[in-house]
Each structure stands twice: as structure tokens, then as C-alpha cells.
């Protein structure tokens, strides 16, 4: 035995690894998992919702949101739009580091999978982006996320703009990074030349909005005033130094989604034709910044506040202890809405429990995960 100490040690380490795998992936279901169930009945002009929350071995904080929807949504598996993420490392990035841009892609794909988003998620490079923007027929079922703080020169420059017509025909654009539409990125690994007259600069905003709606702050600013959306959806992105002016959002019938500083919002929505532009007001340098961005984007996409269900009807928060089971019920007045979306999510950092249900008049159409 004395001479076998090294072998014994190695075997112990190998056993530890096997034990770790069994614990983490839990094929024997030793660690009971949390569970959410929901049922509802229609009683005249009210809907009675009964739901059960059960915690697993670990305590958890949950939030339940009920949204009123202006569309007759039938099935949760059909309402999610397709997501296109523009990411092309061969093109220049501005206001988003290469690590942060790559992190957006990785995190967004996995996050939407964990949250059981039903739309297709596809990464497009500069060439594919051009092809996508030319297909206006599917724009109203698509969300485009620009991860590199600048449109590539395949779709946007001083001379041409394929983005605006695509949005006007129904597309949703989500922007993060440097000033909106300020630069036109070239295919190059070199850093962007900020002084190059090639860039549309301030004129870029006029190309989209006919005016200047973002006046950048000279130094870092963040918003600490919550809006209804940022509070209920637990949105965390708070940079406002490149955010849209609140007054401009109000003039244009837009929506203040994110947190507010004195004159800007960290996430603002501006309608444009049949579509909309959502602008996040700050740069991303670290992978952690990207993570915050991705969590907020996922919340917007899953709750559908940006398209079908903008009205928050009810918000409930619960704190469950280990193995605790909560049985609750709720009554929703039908009022003017054609359907309702119920979204439950774990509010703990890195929570992994998410579930959604659609409620409408036709009970046979009810659906959830």
C-alpha cells in the first residue's frame, strides 16, 4: 500500500470526478427539481387562474407577471419571433469589445434555450445580414440584434441604408454598443478609424429619425430610477450615456423600457413604420456586461411587451423555502384584451426556472410548457 500512494490518489480523484458528474447531472433525480403548474377557468368576464409553485431542494424567489395582449394569441409555441444575431468577427466593432460581442452570441443562444423560447435563433454575418434585410416579407416575424455597435458596410453607409426599409416593413431592431447608426463598419481587423469621413456620424440619426434623438453624455452615466417595465421584468442594464432622450421617446409615441437618469433611459423603444427600434444606452466591454444585456433582451422577448402584450396587469413575487409548495389563485378581468400572457420566472441570480402560458377565451387553446 505504501508504494501505491500515487495510484490510490489518482483513483480517488477519478472517483471524485464520477461522483461530481452524478451530482451535477443527477440521473437518479436525487435533487428534486422545482415545478410550476397552472390551470384556469373562465367565469363570465373574469378568468380564474390557479397555480402551484414547488421549490426543490434549494430555496428560490419567483415572480409571476400577467400581461394583457391586444392580439388573439393562440399558442405559446407560435408567438415567438425568429431572432437574427448579427455577429461577424471579420468586421470592425465599435463600443463592444470582441470578447463582449462573442459573449452576446453565446449567452443569447443558451439563454433563450434555457428559457424555452420557441423562435428560431440564427447568427448572421455581414453578407447574410444583407440577404436578410432584403427579405422584407418576413420582417414582421423577425428580430434583429446588432452586437457590434455599428452596421456593416454591406447594409449601411452614407449612400445606402437597407436597415430602415426593413424596420418600416415590420422588423424589430435591437441595438447595443456605440452611438446608434454613427459608424459604418468595414471588413477589417484594424480598429475603426473614428475620423474617417466615410462614417455617417450624426447624420446617421437623421437618416433614421429625421432628427437627433440621442445626445451622448460626456462621461459615464447610469439610470437608477426604475420604470414599470424595468421593475417588473427585473431589467438590470442601466447605462444611459448613449441612451435615447426621454423627451424624444415621448414625442414619438415610444416606450421607456429601461431605467431612467434625469433625461435619458437605458433602454428605449421608438416605433418606425410597422416596426420598431430598441436602443440600449451604453457600451459593452466585458463579457459580464454582455450577460446583463442578454438577460434584459431575453426578458423583453419572452414577455412580448415590445409587440403583442404591452400592458402589465398583475405582478406577484414569492419567496419559497426548501421543498415548500405554494398553491395560489388569481382572478383576471377580461376587459379589452383578446388574450393574456402569464410569465413566471426565478428572480434569483442565475435562476433557471422560466415558464409561460397563454390564456384566451377558447380554453382548448390553452398552452404552456
Amino acid at each position: 500500500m505504501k508504494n501505491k500512494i500515487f495510484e490510490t490518489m489518482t483513483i480517488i480523484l477519478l472517483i471524485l470526478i464520477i461522483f461530481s458528474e452524478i451530482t451535477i447531472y443527477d440521473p437518479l433525480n436525487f435533487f428534486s427539481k422545482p415545478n410550476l403548474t397552472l390551470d384556469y377557468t373562465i367565469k363570465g368576464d373574469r378568468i380564474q387562474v390557479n397555480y402551484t409553485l414547488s421549490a426543490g431542494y434549494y430555496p428560490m424567489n419567483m415572480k409571476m407577471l400577467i400581461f394583457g395582449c391586444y392580439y388573439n394569441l393562440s399558442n405559446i409555441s407560435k408567438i415567438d419571433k425568429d431572432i437574427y444575431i448579427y455577429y461577424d468577427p471579420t468586421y470592425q466593432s465599435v463600443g463592444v469589445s470582441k470578447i463582449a460581442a462573442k459573449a452576446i452570441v453565446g449567452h443569447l443562444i443558451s439563454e433563450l434555450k434555457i428559457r424555452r423560447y420557441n423562435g428560431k435563433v440564427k447568427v448572421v454575418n455581414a453578407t447574410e445580414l444583407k440577404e436578410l434585410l432584403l427579405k422584407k416579407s418576413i420582417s414582421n416575424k423577425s428580430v434583429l440584434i446588432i452586437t457590434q455597435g455599428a452596421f456593416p458596410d454591406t447594409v449601411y453607409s452614407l449612400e445606402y441604408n437597407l436597415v430602415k426599409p426593413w424596420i418600416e416593413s415590420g422588423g424589430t431592431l435591437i441595438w447595443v454598443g456605440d452611438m446608434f447608426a454613427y459608424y459604418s463598419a468595414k471588413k477589417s481587423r484594424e480598429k475603426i478609424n473614428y475620423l474617417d469621413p466615410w462614417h455617417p456620424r450624426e447624420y446617421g440619426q437623421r437618416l433614421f429619425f429625421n432628427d437627433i434623438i440621442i445626445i451622448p453624455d460626456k462621461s459615464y452615466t447610469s439610470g437608477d430610477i426604475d420604470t414599470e417595465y424595468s421593475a417588473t421584468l427585473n431589467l438590470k442594464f442601466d447605462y444611459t450615456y448613449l441612451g435615447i432622450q426621454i423627451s424624444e421617446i415621448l414625442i414619438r409615441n415610444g416606450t421607456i423600457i429601461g431605467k431612467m437618469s434625469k433625461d435619458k433611459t437605458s433602454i428605449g423603444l421608438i416605433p418606425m413604420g410597422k416596426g420598431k427600434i430598441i436602443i440600449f444606452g451604453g457600451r459593452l466591454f466585458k463579457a459580464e456586461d454582455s450577460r446583463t444585456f442578454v438577460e434584459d433582451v431575453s426578458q423583453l422577448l419572452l414577455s412580448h411587451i415590445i409587440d403583442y402584450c404591452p400592458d402589465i396587469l398583475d405582478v406577484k413575487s414569492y419567496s419559497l423555502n426548501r421543498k415548500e409548495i405554494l398553491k395560489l389563485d388569481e382572478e383576471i378581468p377580461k376587459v379589452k384584451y383578446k388574450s393574456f400572457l402569464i410569465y413566471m420566472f426565478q428572480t434569483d441570480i442565475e435562476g433557471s426556472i422560466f415558464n409561460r402560458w397563454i390564456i384566451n377565451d377558447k380554453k382548448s387553446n390553452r398552452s404552456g410548457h
Partner: protein
Amino acid sequence: MKKDVIILFIKKIQNHDLFYSLMIGILIRYSIALYTIQPNDIIVWFKESLNVIYGLGIYERPYFAYPPIWGYILGVFLKFSSLIFNPREYGYYIKEFHQLDYVTGMVSGFVTTPLFNFLYKTPLIITDIIIGYLIYKVILELKNDKRFAIYAFNLWFFNPLVILVSSYIGKFDNILTLFILLIAIFVYKRNWFFTGISLGLGIFTKIYPIIFLPIILILILVEKITDRYQFKKIILNLLYLFFGIFLTSSIIILPLLFNDEYGRLFSPFTRIETGVGVGGMSIWSVRYLTGHEWIYDWAHTHTKFVISTLFKIQFSLILFITVLFIFKYIKSKEKLITYYIFTLIILISYLTNYTLNPPYLLWIFPLLIILGTYTGFGYNSYKKIMLIIFIYGVISTSAFLLAPLLKNNAPFIIYILEIILILSLLIRIGNIYLNSLLILTISGITFYYAIKGIWSDLAPFAIFTNILDLKNIDEYTIRYISIKGLFNNTVSSDIYLLTGLLVNYCFILVFVSIIKYLWIRDHILINNLKKIMGKVSRK
């Protein structure tokens, strides 16, 4: 009866040669571990742990950019601990750090609690103990002298860089060090099955140990070829090796396959997409010299060229070492050469890497300690090494803590530290391996401190005790950043440059010394070449 057995066991442990060293070492580690964090990494370990606790796999959210072993170890420790402790109490976002984070990028705006720090650093501290014990055992076998085995254990266990990496920074490089040591031990023992298992474990901790595979294969071939062409034995040994690797790989990969997380295993390879950041203490540290900043940008935009060229150089040097090794081995059959060869290969990887961070230095420490202790040194040298390391640890820690406090005298304190660093080149204690261990340790801790100063790492101390204010941390960190260096615009650039010079000087010194041992002193290569040439001409 049971009680007697337990009492006997406790007495046995108490009477062990390492008992008191172990207790003191553990005490030092935990006193540091609870209130310190490395802001950039901590958030990854914290979130990775929560993901596992909340039922996700280690790669389901893409935080973890390494092969899975550390993820598994971290996961199992935290998942079981959280059956008792509340995971909601593991960490908090700190609003006060948000602006500092944006301006300097030096804090994460996030702090973990002493409880979490205790839990996640415990496996790393256990690893330190295991490595120390293995070193003790190796020296005991090699020298059959308990005194030297205890010296060796202490050189590892009380090394400030070792303590810094596991208990302060909380990096898992010591786990990789453990597997590298095990690979070297099993190759030394010619136990190919366990070599394969250790190699598998190492590769799935960080891909790095794959660098040892060619030399292991050559050794299997050479050893038996010289034993009258025992081809069957060669095949059998190769089978043992690959079965070990296959078994370990299967165990590690299988759950990832079932959980559809296999793709993330290869995430380290996609680093080429974001461009390499050359620097650290590698030879690229020359980029920190004022006026040479272009080197970083150039390497970043020529990532493919840089990586492929470095790989070619690395491959050629390893080939050279392999050839050298074959000739040496044919003559002497000295098993101890294994440790020399492993040291050389790690040195080559250091010299040809695009970056080198302080935790990486740990990989070579056990080998330097083994070679240094085996080569022989006296009690006085041992005492001096321990004393210098201790004094330097105190000086450098005090300098980085004090500099931002003493506004006007800050540069003066740092200049003294820089001069001490330069003077360390003159140190000659023990033998070349221990001398290098000393200089690498000094350089490693200074480099780490220089990145952000010490204050930003003390965030948990400020939050969970009332001794320090967060505003002070904020202020001292910004003050530290603005201290001018002796040769460059910033202190950190100065120290990066100096420590880069020191460590590469040590690498080359040890490299040349081993080559001399393997080649020039014994004229092995020349003699063998002559023999071969003679045989060829006779034919």
C-alpha cells in the same frame, strides 16, 4: 473498539512529520481566503456554481471557458454545501463599484461573501495539501531522507505564490499542477495506465498537458526498443497508455454528450476569433515598455500568424529536446531524466506562449522543488530561501498596500520595490532550481499585485467587516492606477516589464542548465552520433 481506532488514527496524524506545517499552512490559507477575491474570475465561479445548484449543466450557460474538471469539482462542492447553506447568501452586486468598474475595468461590481469564498476555495486548498504530500512522498522515495522530504513539502506549502493562487486569487491552476505532477511521477515509474489516466485528467482541466504526449510516446518506444526490440511490450504499453486516456475521457465527456453540452468543450480553441492578447510575464512583456505598445496591437491583428509561429517554434524545440532525451536515455537509463524533461517542456511552453500569468508559474514549481531537493542543498540554504520569500512577501504586500495611502511618497515606495526586484537577479542560494523557484515566486506575487494593487481585492473585507469603507477602496484603487513608474507611465507597466525580464531570465537559466546536464557535460549526443555514424560507415 471504534473509539480506540479513532484515537489511534488521530494520534498517528498528530505524530506525522507534516502535522504542524499542515496546520499552520491551512490556518494561513483560510485567514486569507475568506475576505479576498479576484474581481474578474470570481463572478464566473460564482455564477457557474449557482447554475449547477439550480439544476443546469456546467456549460449550459457559457460562463465556463475551460475543459470541465474544475467545473465538476466546483459544482459538486457547492451543490452539496447548498443543502445546508442558502445560495442567496453567496454574493451581491455592489452599486458603489459600478462607476469604478466602468472607468478602470478593475473591479467587477460584484462581491462574494466569506461563506462562498470558504466553500469554493476549499477544494483548491485541499489540492495544495495533496500536491505537498505527493512532493513529500516523491522526495522520500528519491532521497530516503525525511528531512529533505519535509523541506520540499514546506517549500511548496509555504510558497506565497502557491498560497496566493489557491487562497487569494482562487484560481484552479494548482489542480492542473497536481495532474502534471502525477503525469511526471507515473512516467518516472513507467506506469503507463496511470500515466494515461493522469494525462486525461490534466487535459480535461486545461488542454495544456497534451504537450507531454509526444515525449511519453517516444519514451515508451525508446525504452523497449533498447531492450532487444520487445515490440509486443511496446504495443502493450501503448495500449495501457491509451486505455488510461480513453477511460478518463469517456468518464468526463459522457455526461456532456447526454446533456448536449459537448460543443462548449472546444470553446478555448475559438479564442483565435477574438484575437490574442500578448503580454503577462511572457517574452512579449516587452510591449509594456513605453513606445512599444504597438506590439500588442500588431499581435492582436495578426493572431493567426502569432499562434502558428509560436506553435512551430514550440514544436521544434520539443523535437530537439526529444532527440536529446533519446540519446541520453539510451546511454544512462536514468529514470530521473523524466523530471528534467518535463521541466524542459514546461519551460519551452513558457518561453513560447503569447501570455504568461502568475498562476501558470505553479505548473513548474513541484518539478523545481523535486530537482532542487534531489540535487542537494544544505539546511542553511533552505532557511535562507524560506526567510527571503517571507521577507519579500511582507515587503511587497506592504508596498502595494501603503503606496496609495501615502499620496506623495507612493512612487518612492514603488521604486524601492522595483530596485529590490532588479537586485533579486543577484541572489544565489541553494542550487539553480531553488534559486529560480525563489525568483519566480517573487516575480509572480509582484506581478499579480501590480495589476490592480491590493485594495480592489479587499472588497469583501470592506463589506463584511466594518473596518474598511468601500469608498476608500474606490479611492485607493484609482490612486494606485495613477502612480507613475520608474521607466513607464504606470507602475504596473514597470513591474510587468521587470517581472517579465526576471522570469524569462530564470527560464533560460534553468533551460540551459538542464541542457548542459543532458548534453554538454556528458557529451552524450556527440558520442552517440559518432557511434551511429560509425555503424553507418561500417555498413
